[in-house]
Protein backbone atom coordinates (compact mmCIF):
# COMPACT_ATOMS: atom_id res chain seq x y z
CA UNK A 1 0.00 0.00 0.00
CA UNK A 2 1.26 3.41 -0.88
CA UNK A 3 2.08 5.55 2.14
CA UNK A 4 1.22 9.22 1.89
CA UNK A 5 3.75 11.33 3.73
CA UNK A 6 2.38 14.61 4.93
CA UNK A 7 4.84 17.41 5.59
CA UNK A 8 4.28 18.69 9.08
CA UNK A 9 3.81 22.41 9.13
CA UNK A 10 6.94 24.09 10.41
CA UNK A 11 7.14 27.00 12.81
CA UNK A 12 8.97 29.18 10.31
CA UNK A 13 6.16 29.02 7.77
CA UNK A 14 3.70 29.67 10.58
CA UNK A 15 5.58 32.82 11.55
CA UNK A 16 5.43 34.09 7.99
CA UNK A 17 1.73 33.38 7.79
CA UNK A 18 1.07 34.99 11.16
CA UNK A 19 2.89 38.15 10.10
CA UNK A 20 0.90 38.41 6.90
CA UNK A 21 -2.52 37.66 8.33
CA UNK A 22 -2.45 38.83 11.89
CA UNK A 23 -6.03 39.92 12.33
CA UNK A 24 -7.68 38.12 9.49
CA UNK A 25 -9.99 35.27 10.30
CA UNK A 26 -9.12 33.26 7.23
CA UNK A 27 -10.58 29.87 6.58
CA UNK A 28 -8.49 28.24 3.88
CA UNK A 29 -7.06 24.76 4.38
CA UNK A 30 -3.65 26.25 5.11
CA UNK A 31 -5.08 28.69 7.65
CA UNK A 32 -6.89 25.89 9.46
CA UNK A 33 -3.64 23.88 9.60
CA UNK A 34 -1.80 26.88 10.93
CA UNK A 35 -4.42 27.61 13.59
CA UNK A 36 -4.27 23.96 14.66
CA UNK A 37 -0.47 24.11 14.85
CA UNK A 38 -0.51 27.31 16.90
CA UNK A 39 -2.88 25.73 19.43
CA UNK A 40 -0.35 22.95 20.07
CA UNK A 41 2.90 24.89 19.73
CA UNK A 42 4.05 27.04 22.66
CA UNK A 43 6.67 28.77 20.50
CA UNK A 44 4.17 29.85 17.87
CA UNK A 45 1.65 30.90 20.50
CA UNK A 46 4.29 33.06 22.19
CA UNK A 47 5.41 34.48 18.83
CA UNK A 48 1.86 35.39 17.78
CA UNK A 49 1.23 36.92 21.18
CA UNK A 50 4.42 39.01 21.02
CA UNK A 51 3.57 40.29 17.53
CA UNK A 52 0.11 41.34 18.66
CA UNK A 53 1.58 43.04 21.72
CA UNK A 54 4.10 44.90 19.57
CA UNK A 55 1.31 46.36 17.48
CA UNK A 56 -0.87 47.09 20.51
CA UNK A 57 1.96 48.98 22.21
CA UNK A 58 2.42 51.24 19.21
CA UNK A 59 -1.32 51.71 18.77
CA UNK A 60 -1.80 52.81 22.37
CA UNK A 61 1.32 55.00 22.57
CA UNK A 62 0.02 58.47 23.51
CA UNK A 63 0.18 60.94 20.63
CA UNK A 64 0.41 64.67 21.39
CA UNK A 65 -2.35 66.99 20.21
CA UNK A 66 -1.49 69.96 18.00
CA UNK A 67 -0.24 72.68 20.37
CA UNK A 68 -2.07 76.03 20.15
CA UNK A 69 1.19 77.77 19.20
CA UNK A 70 1.74 75.30 16.36
CA UNK A 71 -1.79 75.83 15.04
CA UNK A 72 -1.27 79.60 15.11
CA UNK A 73 1.98 79.27 13.14
CA UNK A 74 0.26 76.96 10.67
CA UNK A 75 -2.56 79.39 9.95
CA UNK A 76 -0.10 82.29 9.68
CA UNK A 77 1.87 80.33 7.07
CA UNK A 78 -1.33 79.50 5.17
CA UNK A 79 -2.45 83.16 5.24
CA UNK A 80 0.89 84.14 3.73
CA UNK A 81 0.41 81.56 1.00
CA UNK A 82 -3.12 82.77 0.30
CA UNK A 83 -1.90 86.40 0.10
CA UNK A 84 0.88 85.34 -2.33
CA UNK A 85 -1.65 83.63 -4.57
CA UNK A 86 -3.86 86.73 -4.87
Amino acid at each position, binding site marked *: MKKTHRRTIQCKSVYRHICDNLDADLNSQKCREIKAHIKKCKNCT*AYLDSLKKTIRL*YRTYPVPTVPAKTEKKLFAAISLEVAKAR
Partner: protein
Amino acid sequence: MVNTTSHSPDNTLIRKAQAGDSHAFAELVKRYEQTVYGFSFKVCRNKEKAEETLQDTFINVYRKLDQFNGESKFSTWLYSIVTNNCLMRRRKRKIDEQMVYLDEPPIGDDEAHDRLTIPSWNETPAEELMRGELRSHLDEAIQKLPLDYRIVFVLRDIENKGAEETAKILKLSVPAVKSRLRRARIFLRERLNDYMKQ
Protein backbone atom coordinates in the same frame (compact mmCIF):
# COMPACT_ATOMS: atom_id res chain seq x y z
CA MET B 1 -21.49 85.50 11.22
CA VAL B 2 -22.86 81.97 11.35
CA ASN B 3 -20.34 79.28 10.46
CA THR B 4 -22.02 77.29 7.74
CA THR B 5 -19.03 75.12 6.91
CA SER B 6 -18.32 73.22 10.12
CA HIS B 7 -20.59 70.26 9.32
CA SER B 8 -20.13 70.23 5.55
CA PRO B 9 -18.81 67.05 3.96
CA ASP B 10 -15.20 67.16 2.74
CA ASN B 11 -16.15 67.41 -0.93
CA THR B 12 -18.30 70.48 -0.29
CA LEU B 13 -15.47 72.21 1.57
CA ILE B 14 -13.01 71.23 -1.15
CA ARG B 15 -15.22 72.61 -3.94
CA LYS B 16 -15.63 75.88 -2.04
CA ALA B 17 -11.90 76.08 -1.27
CA GLN B 18 -11.08 75.38 -4.93
CA ALA B 19 -13.38 78.31 -5.81
CA GLY B 20 -11.35 80.58 -3.49
CA ASP B 21 -13.31 80.32 -0.22
CA SER B 22 -10.57 80.69 2.44
CA HIS B 23 -12.99 79.90 5.30
CA ALA B 24 -13.72 76.54 3.68
CA PHE B 25 -10.00 75.84 3.38
CA ALA B 26 -9.46 76.84 7.01
CA GLU B 27 -12.22 74.42 8.04
CA LEU B 28 -10.55 71.65 6.07
CA VAL B 29 -7.26 72.37 7.84
CA LYS B 30 -8.92 72.35 11.27
CA ARG B 31 -10.63 69.07 10.41
CA TYR B 32 -7.40 67.29 9.47
CA GLU B 33 -4.58 69.05 11.34
CA GLN B 34 -4.56 66.50 14.19
CA THR B 35 -4.58 63.63 11.69
CA VAL B 36 -1.56 65.04 9.87
CA TYR B 37 0.31 66.08 13.02
CA GLY B 38 -0.40 62.78 14.75
CA PHE B 39 0.68 60.73 11.74
CA SER B 40 3.89 62.77 11.32
CA PHE B 41 4.68 62.30 15.01
CA LYS B 42 4.05 58.55 14.82
CA VAL B 43 6.50 58.33 11.91
CA CYS B 44 9.28 60.64 13.13
CA ARG B 45 8.68 60.55 16.95
CA ASN B 46 9.69 64.19 17.23
CA LYS B 47 7.34 67.14 17.89
CA GLU B 48 9.43 69.70 15.99
CA LYS B 49 9.64 67.54 12.87
CA ALA B 50 5.93 66.78 13.15
CA GLU B 51 5.22 70.51 13.29
CA GLU B 52 7.36 71.19 10.20
CA THR B 53 5.71 68.33 8.31
CA LEU B 54 2.28 69.62 9.34
CA GLN B 55 3.04 73.04 7.88
CA ASP B 56 4.67 71.69 4.70
CA THR B 57 1.70 69.39 4.14
CA PHE B 58 -1.01 72.02 4.31
CA ILE B 59 0.98 74.45 2.21
CA ASN B 60 1.27 71.66 -0.40
CA VAL B 61 -2.46 70.95 -0.07
CA TYR B 62 -3.27 74.61 -0.67
CA ARG B 63 -1.00 74.81 -3.70
CA LYS B 64 -2.25 71.56 -5.24
CA LEU B 65 -5.90 71.65 -4.28
CA ASP B 66 -7.04 72.30 -7.83
CA GLN B 67 -5.41 68.97 -8.79
CA PHE B 68 -7.69 67.02 -6.45
CA ASN B 69 -10.50 65.68 -8.61
CA GLY B 70 -12.45 63.65 -6.05
CA GLU B 71 -11.65 60.26 -7.61
CA SER B 72 -10.12 59.12 -4.33
CA LYS B 73 -11.08 60.14 -0.81
CA PHE B 74 -9.60 63.44 0.30
CA SER B 75 -7.94 61.68 3.25
CA THR B 76 -6.16 59.25 0.89
CA TRP B 77 -4.83 62.19 -1.13
CA LEU B 78 -3.84 64.01 2.05
CA TYR B 79 -1.97 60.98 3.40
CA SER B 80 -0.05 60.69 0.14
CA ILE B 81 1.10 64.31 0.54
CA VAL B 82 2.15 63.91 4.16
CA THR B 83 3.98 60.62 3.53
CA ASN B 84 5.77 62.23 0.62
CA ASN B 85 6.83 65.07 2.93
CA CYS B 86 8.12 62.56 5.48
CA LEU B 87 10.15 60.85 2.74
CA MET B 88 11.41 64.18 1.36
CA ARG B 89 12.59 65.12 4.83
CA ARG B 90 14.73 61.98 4.90
CA ARG B 91 16.26 62.76 1.49
CA LYS B 92 17.25 66.22 2.69
CA ARG B 93 19.14 64.74 5.66
CA LYS B 94 22.62 63.46 4.75
CA ILE B 95 22.53 60.26 6.71
CA ASP B 96 20.00 58.99 9.19
CA GLU B 97 22.35 57.34 11.61
CA GLN B 98 19.68 55.55 13.54
CA MET B 99 18.26 53.49 10.71
CA VAL B 100 19.58 50.06 9.91
CA TYR B 101 19.08 48.15 6.71
CA LEU B 102 16.61 45.32 6.33
CA ASP B 103 18.52 43.31 3.71
CA GLU B 104 19.65 40.68 6.16
CA PRO B 105 17.11 38.08 7.25
CA PRO B 106 15.59 39.07 10.58
CA ILE B 107 15.94 35.60 12.11
CA GLY B 108 18.84 33.15 12.00
CA ASP B 109 19.17 29.88 10.08
CA ASP B 110 16.15 27.67 9.54
CA GLU B 111 17.05 24.88 11.93
CA ALA B 112 18.08 27.17 14.75
CA HIS B 113 14.87 29.11 14.26
CA ASP B 114 12.78 26.01 14.79
CA ARG B 115 14.76 25.01 17.87
CA LEU B 116 14.44 28.42 19.58
CA THR B 117 12.19 28.71 22.56
CA ILE B 118 10.22 31.88 22.16
CA PRO B 119 9.81 33.51 25.55
CA SER B 120 6.46 34.96 26.54
CA TRP B 121 6.21 38.69 26.94
CA ASN B 122 5.22 40.53 30.07
CA GLU B 123 1.75 42.02 30.20
CA THR B 124 1.96 45.77 29.87
CA PRO B 125 -0.67 47.75 31.70
CA ALA B 126 -1.73 51.00 30.07
CA GLU B 127 -0.12 53.01 32.90
CA GLU B 128 3.25 51.54 32.09
CA LEU B 129 3.08 53.08 28.64
CA MET B 130 3.18 56.47 30.25
CA ARG B 131 6.51 55.63 31.83
CA GLY B 132 9.57 56.98 30.10
CA GLU B 133 11.49 53.72 29.89
CA LEU B 134 9.00 51.79 27.80
CA ARG B 135 8.25 54.78 25.59
CA SER B 136 11.91 55.35 24.87
CA HIS B 137 12.30 51.67 23.92
CA LEU B 138 9.38 51.96 21.55
CA ASP B 139 10.76 55.18 20.06
CA GLU B 140 14.24 53.77 19.67
CA ALA B 141 12.98 50.61 17.98
CA ILE B 142 10.78 52.37 15.45
CA GLN B 143 13.39 55.01 14.69
CA LYS B 144 15.78 52.22 13.71
CA LEU B 145 13.23 50.83 11.27
CA PRO B 146 13.92 52.20 7.75
CA LEU B 147 11.48 54.93 6.85
CA ASP B 148 9.89 53.08 3.90
CA TYR B 149 8.94 50.22 6.23
CA ARG B 150 8.06 52.52 9.12
CA ILE B 151 5.51 54.42 7.05
CA VAL B 152 3.82 51.18 5.97
CA PHE B 153 3.70 49.97 9.58
CA VAL B 154 2.20 53.24 10.80
CA LEU B 155 -0.37 53.37 8.00
CA ARG B 156 -1.45 49.72 8.32
CA ASP B 157 -1.12 48.87 11.98
CA ILE B 158 -1.56 52.21 13.73
CA GLU B 159 -3.73 54.26 11.35
CA ASN B 160 -5.65 51.09 10.36
CA LYS B 161 -5.54 51.78 6.66
CA GLY B 162 -6.30 48.75 4.48
CA ALA B 163 -3.67 47.23 2.22
CA GLU B 164 -5.25 48.68 -0.92
CA GLU B 165 -5.54 52.19 0.43
CA THR B 166 -1.95 52.03 1.74
CA ALA B 167 -0.81 50.87 -1.70
CA LYS B 168 -2.64 53.84 -3.28
CA ILE B 169 -1.16 56.31 -0.79
CA LEU B 170 2.40 55.07 -1.38
CA LYS B 171 2.02 54.20 -5.08
CA LEU B 172 3.09 50.64 -4.37
CA SER B 173 1.62 47.27 -5.23
CA VAL B 174 -0.41 45.45 -2.56
CA PRO B 175 2.18 42.62 -2.40
CA ALA B 176 4.92 45.23 -1.81
CA VAL B 177 2.87 46.72 1.04
CA LYS B 178 2.36 43.26 2.57
CA SER B 179 6.06 42.42 2.28
CA ARG B 180 7.14 45.68 3.93
CA LEU B 181 4.57 45.28 6.68
CA ARG B 182 5.71 41.74 7.44
CA ARG B 183 9.33 42.80 7.70
CA ALA B 184 8.45 45.86 9.79
CA ARG B 185 6.44 43.79 12.28
CA ILE B 186 9.23 41.23 12.61
CA PHE B 187 11.86 43.94 12.98
CA LEU B 188 10.00 45.76 15.75
CA ARG B 189 9.11 42.57 17.56
CA GLU B 190 12.75 41.50 17.53
CA ARG B 191 13.94 44.91 18.75
CA LEU B 192 11.50 44.88 21.66
CA ASN B 193 11.97 41.23 22.57
CA ASP B 194 14.85 41.63 25.02
CA TYR B 195 13.03 44.32 26.95
CA MET B 196 9.65 42.63 26.99
CA LYS B 197 10.40 38.98 27.66
CA GLN B 198 9.78 37.40 31.03
